[in-house]
C-alpha cells in the first residue's frame, strides 16, 4: 500500500458537547470539512477500491467444484471454473460430468467440465452429471467376493488401484463388517443387596465426618457398572474431543478426566441417544456398594475392598494399596495411568480405589442425615456441588477408602476426576 500518509494532527473544537469523532460527524453535514474538532487523525495514502463486484453461485450434485458455493469477483475478472470429470457415488456407481447450465455471464449451457469466462454480472453455474451405463462402470474399492460371468471368482480388497468390470459380474458377496462392542464398554453385574454405608471404621486419621452417620442401604435391584473408568478414546468417540493433557496422562486407554459433571451428563445423553441401552452415573450408594464388594468379602467393611492395609493415612510409602490402585504412593510417572493395570475388587471392578476419582449422580450433602436408603441418588436440594468417590493418582491413602467422599461444583473440572457409568438392566 505504500507509505502511510503523515498528515496526523489535532484540530481543536471549542464547541462543547460530545466527543470529537461523533461531534465532528454531526457537523460534517453542515460544514463539509473545515471545522475544528478535538480529535487526532491520520490518513491513508490514496488507494483504488473497485466495488463493482459480481457474485458467482456454483452448484453441483457431486464433488466439490472449484469454485464452490458463492464467490465474489471484481467485474471484468477472468474466472476459471471446473469440476472433476467423473466420480463414484456412495454406492460405487460411476458418474460423469456432462457439462453445465447457467445464467448471467456464461452461456446457457456447455458440455465440458471446465469453463473460463469473464464475469460482468451475477452468475449462476450448475454442473450437470450423468450416470454411466453398466459397461462403463468400474469398481475400485468394493470389498468382498465377485462371481464373474465365466464362473470365475475374484476376491476384492480395498486396493483402489485394482479395477474390476462390474458389468462382468454375476453377483457380489460383500465381506461382512465385524460389529464392534458398543464403544468397547464392558460391565460387571452387581446383584441386589444391603450394606452399611459410611465410615464404618473409627480409625484416627481415616474417618471423615461427612461420611457419617453410618446407615443401612438396601439396593433392591441388580445393576451393571462399567468395569473400567470411561476412557479417553470412549470420550473422544462420543464427544469429539479429548480434554486430557499429556502432562497428566494422555492416550486412548487412559481414563478420561478434566470433565465436569455437566459434561458427563452430555456424554451420557449422547450415548443414550445412540439407542444401545440406557446409561447414567451411579448413585453414591451404588458406587460404595459396588466398591465394598459382596457379603462374602471379609474386607467389605475395611478401609478398602481388599486386605487390611498397612498404609499410612497421609503418607506416600509403598503399601498394599499399590497392588490395587494408582495413588500418591506409586504415582510414577505423574498423572493418570492406563485403566485395568491393577487388581480388581471382588466384583471385578478396576481402579475403584485409585487412578481418577469418579463423579456420582448425587448432589453433595454435608453428611448422611436424611440420605435415601434405597440406593437411589440423593438429588434433593439446590446444591450445585456433586459427589465424587474413589481415590486418585495423587491422593493420600485415606482418601482412597471405600467410604471416602468429596464434592465439586458440577461445572468444574479436575485432572483427578473422571467417571464410570451404570447401564440400566430393564
Amino acid at each position, binding site marked *: 500500500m505504500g507509505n502511510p500518509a503523515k498528515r496526523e494532527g489535532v484540530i481543536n473544537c471549542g464547541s462543547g458537547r460530545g466527543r470529537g469523532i461523533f461531534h465532528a460527524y454531526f457537523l460534517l*453535514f453542515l460544514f463539509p470539512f473545515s471545522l475544528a474538532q478535538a480529535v487526532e487523525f491520520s*490518513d491513508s495514502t490514496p488507494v*483504488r477500491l473497485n*466495488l463493482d463486484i459480481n457474485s458467482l453461485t456454483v452448484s453441483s450434485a*457431486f464433488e466439490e467444484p472449484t469454485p464452490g458455493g458463492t464467490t*465474489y469477483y471484481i467485474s471484468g475478472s477472468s474466472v476459471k471454473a471446473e469440476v472433476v470429470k467423473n466420480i463414484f457415488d456412495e454406492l460405487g456407481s460411476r458418474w460423469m460430468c456432462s457439462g453445465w447450465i447457467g*445464467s448471467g455471464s456464461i452461456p446457457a449451457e456447455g458440455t465440458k467440465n471446465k469453463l473460463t469466462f469473464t464475469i460482468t454480472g451475477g452468475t449462476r453455474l450448475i454442473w450437470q452429471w450423468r450416470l454411466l451405463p453398466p459397461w462403463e462402470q468400474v469398481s475400485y474399492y468394493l470389498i468382498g467376493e465377485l462371481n464373474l460371468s465365466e464362473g470365475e471368482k475374484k476376491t476384492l480388497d480395498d486396493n483402489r488401484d485394482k479395477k474390476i468390470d462390474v458389468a462382468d459380474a454375476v453377483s457380489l458377496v460383500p465381506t461382512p463388517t465385524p460389529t464392534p462392542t458398543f464403544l468397547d464398554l464392558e460391565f460387571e453385574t452387581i446383584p441386589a443387596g444391603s450394606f452399611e454405608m459410611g465410615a464404618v471404621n473409627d480409625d484416627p486419621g481415616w474417618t471423615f465426618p461427612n461420611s457419617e452417620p453410618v446407615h443401612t442401604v438396601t439396593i433392591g435391584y441388580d445393576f451393571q457398572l462399567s468395569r473400567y473408568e470411561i476412557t479417553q478414546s470412549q470420550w473422544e468417540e462420543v464427544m*469429539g474431543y479429548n480434554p486430557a493433557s499429556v502432562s497428566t496422562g494422555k492416550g486412548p486407554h487412559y481414563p478420561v478426566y478434566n470433565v*465436569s459433571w*455437566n459434561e458427563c451428563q452430555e456424554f451420557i445423553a449422547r450415548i443414550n441417544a445412540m439407542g444401545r441401552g440406557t446409561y447414567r452415573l451411579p448413585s453414591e450408594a451404588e458406587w460404595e456398594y459396588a466398591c465394598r464388594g459382596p457379603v462374602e468379602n471379609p474386607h467389605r467393611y475395611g478401609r478398602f475392598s481388599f486386605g487390611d492395609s498397612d498404609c499410612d493415612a497421609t503418607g506416600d510409602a509403598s503399601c498394599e494399596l499399590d497392588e490395587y490402585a494408582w495413588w500418591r504412593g506409586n504415582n510414577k510417572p505423574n498423572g493418570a495411568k492406563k485403566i485395568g493395570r491393577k487388581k480388581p475388587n471382588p466384583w471385578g471392578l478396576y481402579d475403584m480405589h485409585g487412578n481418577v476419582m469418579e463423579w456420582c449422580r448425587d448432589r453433595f450433602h454435608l453428611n448422611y442425615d436424611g440420605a435415601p436408603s434405597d440406593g437411589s441418588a440423593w438429588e434433593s436440594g439446590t446444591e450445585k456441588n456433586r459427589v465424587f468417590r474413589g481415590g486418585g493418582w495423587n491422593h493420600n491413602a485415606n482418601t482412597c477408602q471405600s467410604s471416602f467422599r468429596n464434592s465439586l461444583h458440577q461445572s468444574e473440572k479436575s485432572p483427578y476426576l473422571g467417571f464410570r457409568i451404570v447401564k440400566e438392566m430393564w
Partner: protein
Amino acid sequence: MSRSYYIICIFLITAWIPAAPGISTPTGSSRKPGAGRDLNRTITEETGTTPVLPSVSNVRVSQWSFDPRFVDITYDLDHPSLPYASIGAMLSLDGGKTFPHRINSLLGDVNDFVPTGSGRRMIWNAFRDHPGSVMDNAVIRILADLPPGDFTIKNLSRNHAAPFLLDFNFFLREQTGASVVSNPKRFQIKALEDGSPLDGAETGTRLTSGISKQVRCQLIMDYTAGMADIAHGDQDGDGISDAIEEMEGACKRFIEELRADVLIGLYEFHREDQSPNRVSDFTMNKSELEDRIKAIWTDYVQSFPGGSRCWDALHAAIGDFPGNHQYDELRFLVFFSDGNDESSTRTPIDIVQAALSRNVRIYGIGFGNNLDPAPLKAITTQTGGSCYEAGTVSGIGNAMNHIMQDIRGEFNLRWVTLKRSDMPFTPSFRISLQGRELEYTDLPFTPTDYQGELLRGNLRFIGSPVKQGKTTVFLRCGYTPRYIRKIRIYVKSRYPHLVHLTREQEGGLCPLDWQMRIRDEIDGEGEWIEVTSPNPDDINTSLPYGAFGPLLSFDVTGLERLSDLFLGTGEEVRVDNGIYTETGGQSFLLEVDW
C-alpha cells in the same frame, strides 16, 4: 416481554468495582453533570492540564483479493497512559481533500475501547456501503479520541424465551446518556444465577451487539404545518420547507446506515382531519423506501399540511409490529413531532402500553417553534428509548445521528440456564473491562416458564415485498442448539436465485472459515445447500451454543409475489435434520415468515 420493571431494574444495579482509566466510578468522576464526553473541557478545568489525545499513524488500506467486497484497514494507535481509545473512520473520494462519508460497516478495532498498540485492524464491508462504485482516489481517515468516561447499564429489557433462554438487551450509557458503542468481544461477561457464576461455555453465555437480532423499525415522519412552515427556510425555493427536507435527508441517511437485512416501515401524518398513512410496509428494499419518502409530499400531503395526529400515527405503526418473534427481534420506532397533538384518538399512555406489549423502543426527535418536549420524553423514556431536541433545522440531522448512535450501542446478553425446575432464581451478570466490573441483578427467572426443547433450533425466512420481480430474503437462526457443525437446507424453487452465506464480518452467524456448498438433487429439481464448519468432526468448530443471526441470503428474481416463494405450487423448502442423528439428535424448525 414486558418492560414494565424498567425503573426498578435500574436500582438493582449492585456493584461498581472501580479502578482503571476509561471507566470511572460515578462517585469518582472528574466530570461535571452535563459535561458528558467532553473530556477535554472538564479535565482542563479541574486539573489545569490539557489532556493528551490518542494518536493514530501508519494507516494502511487493502482490498481483499479472495473476497473483494471487504477492505482491510490497519493502523497504529498510541497513548502515553491510556490502554484504549475511541476510533472512527471517514472516507474521502477526492484524494483526501474532503471527507464527506463516515464509514459505517466496520468490524474489529473501531468505536469505543479500542486497545492502544500497533497493528490495529478493522474490516470494512465496503461493498455494502458503496455497491458498484469504483473509487480511484480513496483515502481513509482514522479518527482517534479519548475513550468514554463513566458508564452504567441502562434501559434493560428482557426477552426471555424457550428453551430456557435468558435474553437481555441493554445500553451502556455515560452519565450524559450517550451510548457506548464498542465491540462486545472487548468485554468480559460473567453470568450468575443466585450469585453463583456460570460456566460460559456450558450455558452459551454470549454478549453481542443488539443489532445482531433481526432489526425491525418504523419511521414516522411529520408533515404537519409546524414542520412545513416556510419560516424554517426554503433555500432551494421549491416551496417545501428546509425542515421537511432536512427530516427527509436525515431519514434517508438513517436508512442507508442500517444493515441490509433490517426491515423498515414508513408512516406519515400531515393533517388533523386525515388519518396517518402507512407509506411503506416493512421492507429491506432501501431504494424503494427512499423513493417512497420522495413521494410523500406530492402523493399524500399534496401541499396541504395541517394539524397533528402524531399519537394515532405512532399507535398504528406499533400495531404493525408482529406479535410473535419478539425475542429474536430488535424493534424500535423513530418519530418526529413538536409534542403538540390535540386531534388523535390515541393518547401517549396508549402508545406506551402498545409499545411495551410489542417490545418496541421509541425514539423521538422534537422540533418546532412551539415544542412541548414533555409528552415526547414520557413516551420515549417509558419505552426504553430516548428523545432528542433539534433546536434548529440543522439540528434534525444531529438528533438522528444521536439515535443511530443509540441503536448501535445496544447490547444483547443471552445464556441458556442449566436449571429446569420451577424454582425461581435470581439472574445477574457482570461486565468487565480491563479489570473493572459492572454488575446487574435482574428479577427472578423461573425455568419452567420458558421450558422448551434444547435440542431444537429455529430457522426463519424473512423477506420483503417484491419490487420489479426481485427481492432478497434472509434465512435467520433464532437459537442454535449445542454442537452444530453443519446445517443442510433443501430448496426447490422455480425462481432463479443466488444464495449467499452471511458470515460474521457481515453481521452473520457463521465464522469466516465456514463454507457453503450447493448440491443439486440428482434425480429432482431441488438443491441442497450445505453450510459446514471447517472440520465437522471437531466439536470445537461448532456454532456458539444459543447463538442467533442471519445464515443465508437469497437474491431472487422472476417473482411476482413474495408469498409464491417456497410456498407456491411446486415450491419446497425444508431442513435436513437427519444429519444430526449421530451428533446428539439436534434439529431445526424451519419457518417461512411471509
